[in-house]
């Protein structure tokens, strides 16, 4: 490099010297000094070029050429501000949409999970045909762990809620009781304090807890002196032994972690009961070299063996394995992939539009290109230069697009709740920017290559001639532009069909009768976890007082408590035995959701009474046990008889479970407990005074906006027990709305993108038609001079546009027919090949195409033959 610098610096002197020597020689040969100098110069050749070429020997030629081309490109873009603005904005929309959606894709599907080697972490659940995936019982977990070899480690995670005490505002927090090896298996290390030890798996271990980072911050101000201090959970003291990393999530939010031994100590009966599937999942790490399929096969064998050995608890229970990533993705995977596909289409349409712009401009530049080729530029060089120009434009669009994506991501955050993302944040990070860079380059190729190749085709001679324009070149270019417009229409149609199907699904879904009236009902959760509620009368007394005090608040119409509130993601199910039924095998008992409710529950939620009576205040602990069944229970188990007066009990009758019969007093309508799209399930209702329950939801129906009652209700509850946390405060309307949140998000975004596609497609077809009208001014003038009526000209232009639209629509329909099936999991109540949607979208596109052609057609009609003919 040093040599390069010296050689180039001395080049001038070297050349000067060379010429002087030659001059000297010439003088010696007898020329006059002037003549001699002139001859020497001539013999030497172009000094500038020599210097240029010499410099090039040392330089990275291509790099300098690149800068040259970029400068040239920028100059051209500056010279055509209109073209540049439209092209840049179009690209910015396409790239911006891609950037925003890719941030989502990355956050949900690609981001590395905060665990060691997360791909070998597996979530295990039990399954039963009655419900599907269910929790694992602790004894089953212990057997799984001891019998399996496919996993190097296994850990149980039992979620437990706590009332956090010793604070001003009582709070309900979520925790996990975990096998002591859990954190080390996940590869998570406490940032402060210690991990659990193996001995803390056994019952009787001392109550200790690890705090989440945020709880540590909020309760202890992030002070390391928190170690060894006590925290009050459910009125009991736990010693703080450590703090979790800030990004810890597995995948749900956790405030405290305790060793499973603490849980088994406090829940010894549940921990021993093989049939008690509380709220436990099992995590396992695949042993090195073991495939997912082999692990599943082994686990299925173990589950089958357990089902055979313990039929009363495990009959028909199997096992389900999922990669841990699935738990983080939730139900977001297919909507996100559909949206990602949609924005790629938008980008393609944007590229097609810009390619069209380039072609139009290229038509104006054929002379320039021909001249450069005549001067010796190779076509490769020209294509390269034009591609760099595209790249510069694409880069500008990309920068603007990233700006749009930043705003877009903010909007996305409004549309997508944190719950849907399991702690991920939708943001622009290195991976997203890398993706944007890729998109920018790809886009530059997509919209730049065709026009560039095209522009180097014209035959130099004819282009340089006067008037230079070959009919054949124009025809080829028009075909190309037509094809681009067709592609845009097809892509727009596919997106519109997708959006249309989503819209129809959502409207169908919102028309589904949930079986209850969500209007003006507020729901809040309470869980009586402290010692003072260990006896049933205290529990009943609390709920009774809450109802008494809330009912008299101004604005309250009715108030009720109950379990398994629809759409609130509660579940409490139990096998039931119906008196007189033929006893099935243990796995085949009816397994309804059990609602424990106060008398006004059914009226508060507006669940219709179909037969018999609903509960009254008389259905108390001293009265005959009473039950209400849902219509589905009545249909399934009492098809040809009146269920009123029949009896059922919870569990299977046995020596250890003497029958406690509940007499059926009424039948009510089915409700959609687990989502509007899901089928109704078996449900039974029993009075809360006959089955005291600590965790219940309070439902309040108000005359006006129910949310306005929140603080009054909170005060009423705290006047009974000031330490009782109230949580999950939400209106039933919001629950219904949240239950379709993913679909709504998909619809909103898909609608937005398809609208964008429609707009770009319309612009595309408008551009093609108006350009063609401009090109054909002469021809139209002749036609009119020969007597063609203006209406014919109008129809001619319109027909040309409709032909493009028609071909585009036809291709689009075929493609949409295939692609829509990919999103069938997102659809509800509508087929992926829904005729109405397809027809509606096709008509919409025809109308838009007509509109886009109308203006150029009017222009064509107004062509003045005299002017048009003189134009030559």
């Amino acid at each position: 490099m040093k040599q390069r610098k010296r050689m180039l610096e001395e080049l001038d002197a070297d050349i000067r010297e060379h010429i002087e020597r030659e001059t000297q020689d010439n003088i010696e040969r007898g020329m006059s000094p002037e003549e001699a100098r002139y001859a020497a110069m001539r013999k030497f050749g172009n000094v500038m070029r020599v210097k240029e070429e010499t410099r090039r020997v040392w330089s990275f030629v291509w790099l300098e050429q690149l800068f040259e081309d970029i400068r040239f490109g920028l100059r051209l873009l500056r010279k055509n501000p209109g073209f540049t603005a439209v092209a840049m904005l179009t690209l910015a929309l396409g790239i911006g949409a891609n950037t925003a959606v890719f941030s989502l894709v990355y956050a949900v599907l690609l981001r590395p999970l905060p665990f060691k080697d997360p791909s070998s972490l597996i979530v295990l659940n039990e399954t039963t045909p009655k419900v599907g995936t269910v929790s694992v019982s602790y004894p089953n977990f212990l057997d799984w762990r001891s019998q399996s070899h496919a996993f190097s480690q296994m850990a149980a995670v039992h979620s437990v809620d706590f009332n956090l005490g010793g604070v001003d505002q009582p709070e309900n927090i979520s925790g996990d009781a975990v096998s002591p090896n859990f954190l080390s298996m996940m590869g998570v290390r406490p940032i402060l304090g210690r991990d659990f030890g193996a001995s803390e798996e056994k019952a009787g271990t001392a109550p200790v807890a690890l705090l989440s980072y945020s709880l540590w911050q909020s309760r202890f101000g992030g002070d390391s002196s928190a170690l060894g201090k006590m925290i009050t959970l459910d009125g009991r003291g736990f010693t703080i032994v450590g703090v979790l990393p800030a990004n810890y999530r597995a995948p749900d939010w956790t405030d405290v972690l305790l060793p499973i031994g603490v849980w088994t100590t406090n829940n010894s009966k549940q921990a021993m009961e093989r049939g008690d599937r509380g709220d436990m999942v099992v995590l396992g790490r695949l042993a090195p070299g073991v495939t997912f399929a082999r692990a599943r096969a082994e686990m299925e064998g173990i589950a089958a063996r357990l089902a055979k050995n313990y039929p009363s608890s495990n009959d028909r229970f199997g096992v389900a394995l999922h990669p841990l990533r699935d738990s983080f993705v939730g139900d977001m995977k297919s909507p996100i992939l559909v949206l990602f596909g949609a924005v790629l289409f938008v980008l393609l349409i944007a590229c097609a539009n810009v390619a069209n712009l380039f072609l139009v401009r290229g038509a104006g530049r054929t002379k320039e290109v021909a001249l450069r080729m005549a001067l010796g530029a190779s076509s490769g060089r020209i294509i390269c230069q034009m591609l760099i120009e595209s790249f510069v434009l694409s880069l500008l669009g990309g920068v603007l697009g990233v700006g749009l994506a930043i705003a877009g991501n903010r909007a996305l955050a409004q549309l997508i709740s944190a719950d849907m993302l399991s702690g991920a944040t939708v943001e622009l990070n290195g991976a997203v920017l890398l993706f944007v860079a890729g998109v920018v380059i790809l886009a530059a190729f997509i919209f730049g290559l065709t026009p560039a190749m095209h522009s180097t085709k014209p035959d130099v001679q004819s282009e340089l001639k006067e008037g230079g324009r070959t009919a054949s070149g124009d025809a080829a270019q028009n075909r190309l532009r037509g094809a681009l417009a067709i592609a845009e229409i097809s892509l727009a149609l596919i997106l519109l069909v997708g959006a249309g199907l989503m819209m129809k699904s959502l409207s169908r879904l919102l028309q589904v009768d949930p079986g209850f009236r969500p209007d003006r009902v507020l729901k809040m959760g309470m869980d009586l976890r402290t010692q003072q509620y260990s006896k049933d009368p205290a529990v009943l007394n609390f709920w009774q007082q809450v109802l008494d005090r809330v009912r008299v608040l101004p604005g309250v119409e009715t108030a009720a408590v109950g379990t398994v509130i629809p759409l609130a993601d509660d579940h409490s199910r139990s096998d039931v035995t119906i008196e007189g039924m033929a006893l099935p095998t243990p796995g085949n008992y009816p397994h309804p959701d059990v609602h424990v409710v106060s008398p006004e529950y059914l009226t508060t939620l507006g669940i219709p009474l179909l037969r018999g009576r609903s509960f009254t205040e008389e259905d108390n602990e001293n009265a005959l046990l009473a039950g209400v069944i849902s219509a589905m229970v009545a249909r399934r188990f009492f098809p040809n008889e009146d269920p009123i007066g029949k009896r059922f009990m919870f569990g299977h009758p046995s020596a250890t479970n003497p029958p406690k019969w509940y007499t059926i007093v009424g039948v009510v309508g089915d409700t959609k407990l687990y989502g509007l799209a899901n089928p109704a399930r078996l449900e039974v209702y029993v009075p809360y005074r006959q089955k005291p329950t600590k965790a219940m939801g309070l439902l309040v129906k108000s005359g006006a906006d129910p949310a306005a009652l929140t603080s009054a209700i909170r005060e009423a509850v705290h006047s009974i027990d000031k330490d009782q946390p109230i949580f999950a405060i939400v209106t039933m309307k919001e629950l219904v709305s949240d239950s379709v949140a993913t679909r709504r998000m998909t619809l909103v975004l898909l609608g937005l993108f398809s609208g964008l596609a429609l707009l770009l497609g319309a612009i595309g077809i408008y551009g093609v038609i108006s350009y063609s009208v401009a090109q054909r001014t002469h021809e139209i003038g002749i036609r009119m001079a020969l007597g063609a009526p203006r209406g014919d000209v109008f129809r001619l232009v319109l027909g040309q546009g409709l032909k493009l639209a028609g071909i585009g629509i036809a291709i689009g329909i075929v493609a949409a027919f295939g692609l829509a099936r990919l999103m069938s999991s997102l659809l509800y109540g509508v087929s992926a090949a829904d005729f109405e949607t397809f027809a509606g979208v096709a008509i919409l596109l025809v109308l838009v195409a007509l509109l886009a052609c109308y203006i150029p057609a009017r222009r064509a009609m107004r062509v003045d033959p005299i002017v048009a003919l003189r134009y030559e």
Partner: protein
Amino acid sequence: MSTKEQRERIELLQGTLDLLILRTLLLGPRHGHAIAKAIEFNSEDVLQVEQGSLYPALHRLIKRGWISVEEGTSENNRRAKFYRLTPKGRRQLALETRKWDKLARAIARILRPA
């Protein structure tokens, strides 16, 4: 006039100039102008090198390490840059000469079949 010139003088093939420079320097180090003169003289003026084109070629050969450069004074006590063949350049010249001979023989056989 110009057509006559074109008929008698042969334009250099790409890379041929490099070969001629190496061959010239085989006889000893020379400065730029002397190299041009030597090529013209030795080819009996058939090969007319545009003298300027010597410089990109010299720089190219330096970059490749086939020749080296040193400061010196010429016969009439003027500052000059002398170019010298390196051992690497010597090997390259041998290689290129063999290639050239082969090519020349092949073309001669085609143009003048026996």
